[in-house]
């Protein structure tokens, strides 16, 4: 088991979770009722895909971010 602190970027609220091996980003977001959000380790790291296992990519006690989906672009370049 690993403990994670999920920071909701918009509010700064911190949600503490405990995850087991194989837990995906989608599992965490679903559990926290953050369906329209994406998880990442910060602005310099890519988003976790919903089906991606987070367990192996985070350290125990690490802080990760949940931010709403956004994309720079216009229709032709998105």
């Amino acid at each position, binding site marked *: 088991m690993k403990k994670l602190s999920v920071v909701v970027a*918009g509010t700064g609220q911190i949600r503490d979770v405990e995850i087991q091996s194989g837990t995906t980003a989608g599992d965490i977001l679903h559990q926290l009722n953050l369906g329209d959000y994406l998880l990442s380790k910060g602005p310099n790291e890519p988003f976790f895909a919903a089906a991606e296992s987070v367990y192996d990519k985070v350290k125990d006690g690490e802080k990760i971010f949940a931010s709403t989906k956004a994309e*720079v672009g216009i229709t032709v370049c998105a």
Partner: protein
Amino acid sequence: MRVRELGSRPAPVSIRELISRVVRGHGPAISVERREIPYWRERGWTYDGTNYTGSYQTPYAAFRGWIEERRSGSNFFLYSPSAQIKRHSHWVCFTPRGSDWYLVHMARRPKDVSSGILTIERLITEAYQK
């Protein structure tokens, strides 16, 4: 063999402090409360009731920015983008607004300014990593 005491002198301060600490043990732990603040504030942006002012920060570079809040959503501006950003595939999404300010067009608008700042910081990082 006989030992003759020639005299005594005080131990150095560092040794005395070390021994003192061992005798005293650890002091009580100080509980540090974590801050629950929005990402924009954590990154030093300020809000005047209408606009946010600050900078998009990455390990590679930081760029001045401001964000205007509209009913239709937030507009994100970036000042004086670098050559690396201009070479990024999303450069076409930057619209000049005069005086070297650029509007960063969002195909999918974030629901809060913090998520928008994170998105633009991620784009800047990508531009420098390529």
